[in-house]
């Protein structure tokens, strides 16, 4: 009897072993992303279910962190043997650069060839997700991540205020500057702005800087090319322009004490100001909080001060999906990235108020979301996508604040940033 039961157990074991090898191996794919809002969670879960249906042997185990947590956890998590197989990676030297240097990310070039990721969006945008193999050169070498969202820093404006003051969307720098005076005379704050949190100053000053600059100069600075420098005529001009706008009262009164989420956002949706110079990531919130925002709020690009037809504009692709170097499921991970950065995902992301990196199938021209998509299309197809300066100069927000307060002159400001830049090499 004892023997028989033993035999049965052995038989059962063999049988189960047989079935697992006959089918595909059961795989758990661990994915870390930064979609933490409830509606976003649902969207990602939907895509994950789609992926599990396509690959019945795969179970996705997903964890969501906000971007700063994700960035801080990534190095340690990717060093673990059971760390995330797929993870969203922040760009720049202290983000992706450090991970590549430590050999924690898998180069994706072969998968990009296989799945045709190169054609998803403009080549210059892939450079933002690329690093040399030793992690020291940014914007070149291997591809380490693929993004599914995009961002463009432009100007939200209240159509009703523009109508009241007889203003059209400015298409040249001079028109924009004269609009500032018209709005001020009309009793509104021309540009709502708050610099208490530091980083919004990077976008506001950076937008003016981009308006004066050309892409090659900014690229060289960002990617730390041999002739990369911050001490340019354009940067000094941009600083002087910003100081002039502060002097003229074109920004919110007391802007140094205003934070982004409450005070600045409140000043815009409360119609204190006519325009808000910030990133396209606010579209979803504005649509939610402003009545009939799709029709009453618009978005346009800050015109070029250098006379370019398509203005050089801060923007880029959002955090990209990368693969852990030590994973055993690299092929499955790549298949997942293909889906999550592909056209189905783009449509779902768009429905959530995101600006997808690839243009969604259906959108309506003349609406707020339509304006944002067209702005992104224009700059990405014309190779006019600029950069977030803090990727390369992490402390630049403090430098800009010092310049705005007159603690340092525009020349000293560019020299200070240059000094930090050189010591960071």
């Amino acid at each position, binding site marked *: 009897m004892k023997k028989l039961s033993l035999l049965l157990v052995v038989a059962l074991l063999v049988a189960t072993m047989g079935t697992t090898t006959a089918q595909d191996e059961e795989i758990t794919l661990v994915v870390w992303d930064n979609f933490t809002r409830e509606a976003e969670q649902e969207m990602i879960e939907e895509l994950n279910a789609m992926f599990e249906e396509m690959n019945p042997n795969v179970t996705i185990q997903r964890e969501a962190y906000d971007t700063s947590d994700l960035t*801080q956890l990534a*190095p*340690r998590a990717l*060093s673990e043997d059971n760390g995330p197989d797929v993870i969203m990676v922040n760009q720049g030297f*202290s983000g992706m650069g*450090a991970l590549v*240097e*430590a050999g*924690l990310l898998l180069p994706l070039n072969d998968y990009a060839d296989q799945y045709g990721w190169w054609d998803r969006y403009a080549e210059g945008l892939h450079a933002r997700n690329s690093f040399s193999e030793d992690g020291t050169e940014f914007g070149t070498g291997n591809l380490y991540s693929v993004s599914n969202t995009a961002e463009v820093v432009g100007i939200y404006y209240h159509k009703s205020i523009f109508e009241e003051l007889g203003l059209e969307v400015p298409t040249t720098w001079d028109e924009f500057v004269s609009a500032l005076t018209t709005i001020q005379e009309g009793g509104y704050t021309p540009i709502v702005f708050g*610099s*208490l*949190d*530091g980083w919004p100053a990077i976008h506001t000053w950076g937008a003016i800087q981009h308006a004066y600059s050309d892409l090659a100069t900014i690229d060289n600075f960002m990617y730390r090319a041999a002739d990369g420098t911050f001490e340019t005529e354009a940067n000094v001009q941009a600083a002087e322009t910003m100081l002039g706008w502060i002097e003229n009262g074109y920004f919110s*009164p*007391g*802007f*140094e*004490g*205003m*934070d982004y989420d409450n*005070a600045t956002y409140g000043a815009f949706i409360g119609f204190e100001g006519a325009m808000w110079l910030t990133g396209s990531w606010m579209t979803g919130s504005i649509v939610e909080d402003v009545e009939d925002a799709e029709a009453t709020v618009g978005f346009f690009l800050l015109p070029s001060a250098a006379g370019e037809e398509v203005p050089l504009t801060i923007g880029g692709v959002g955090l990209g999906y990368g693969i852990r170097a030590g994973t055993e499921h690299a092929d499955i991970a790549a298949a997942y990235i293909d889906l999550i950065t592909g056209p189905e995902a783009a449509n779902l992301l768009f429905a959530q108020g995101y600006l997808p990196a690839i243009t969604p199938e259906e959108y309506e021209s003349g609406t707020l979301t339509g304006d944002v998509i067209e702005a992104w299309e224009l700059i990405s197809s014309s190779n006019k996508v600029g950069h977030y300066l803090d990727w390369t100069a*992490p*402390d630049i*927000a*403090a*430098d800009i*604040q*010092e310049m705005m*307060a007159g*603690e340092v002159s525009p020349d000293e400001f560019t020299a200070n940033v240059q000094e930090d830049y050189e010591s960071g090499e």
Partner: protein
Amino acid sequence: MFKKIMSQASNSSSEPTVKHGVEIVSTPSFSERLQSLIPWRRRTSAVPFSSGSQALLFILPGLIIYVVFVLFPIIGTIRYSFMEWTGFTEPEWIGLDNYRELMDDEDFIKAIQNNFFFSIFYTIIPILIGLFLVSLMSRSRLKGMFIFRAGLFVPQVMSPVVVGIIWRWLFDYSGPINRALSITGLQGVFESVGLLRRVTPWLGDFTYAPYAVGMVGTWVEYGLCMVLFLAGIQSISEELYDAAIVFGANPLQQFWFVTLPGLRQHVLVAFVLTFIAALRVFDLVFVLTRQGGPGRETIVTSILVYKNTFNLHRAGYGAAMAVVLATIIVVISAGVFWLQSRDSENA
């Protein structure tokens, strides 16, 4: 003449003893009396440990926790301060390079200066406020005094993050402080003499932000000073005050010649505790001015340690900063304790 008599009086009184800056009110005479009252207790305490190993056994649990969670990380931090280390890759030994770099790091020097600047608000002003409040409270008998005492202590027990959020709101450009200024018309008065701007961005202005952040520190720390001094003042013999009154001392003189000398030990303790708090402040600044803004006006050392270690992946450099900060704290605390022990020996 008066001073001489008072100093004799104060010498003859039993001074409160403060050990290790922890025991605030110690009443040795009382515990001695207690021991003599309970014979069985005295008997047990008289039995010595049979061996040292038995004593070790009792110390062991605490010792293990101390070694694992305090000593080991401290030694680790010192070791990493001599290394180039991202926090997750192989560390590389670079000797004193981190410390050499620190000496030329303008941000670090600015941060240390700010720490000392904040110590005025964390240490000196709270001690003065504490002394003032205590002299008011102890010499007058008001109904419901305990409510005042508890209420004034509240800021000290609140989480610094909560304090930070409250004050961010108070300092907001459209917040209660600016509103109060404009409602009372003070805004116009200050504005006309050039003291305030139309809308004062307290936490974002290079002139006001350091004082605004410092003031919040004062608000947090004075409660601790007050409670320390309240405890201390109760151990000052009432006879000293009686004597002072007989010699015709007014309340100010009573404070100066009786209360203050009696509280000397407590002031030293308050100084050490609040000074350490000023040097290691992190959370309050982190919440109030988002990592030390505007520019670098309110940056402090702990913020730089955090930024370097976690944002810039320079854990070795961050460790070096932490070691320098800890050394400053240890040296100053040791100095104060030395003063204190000399003081109690003389007494």
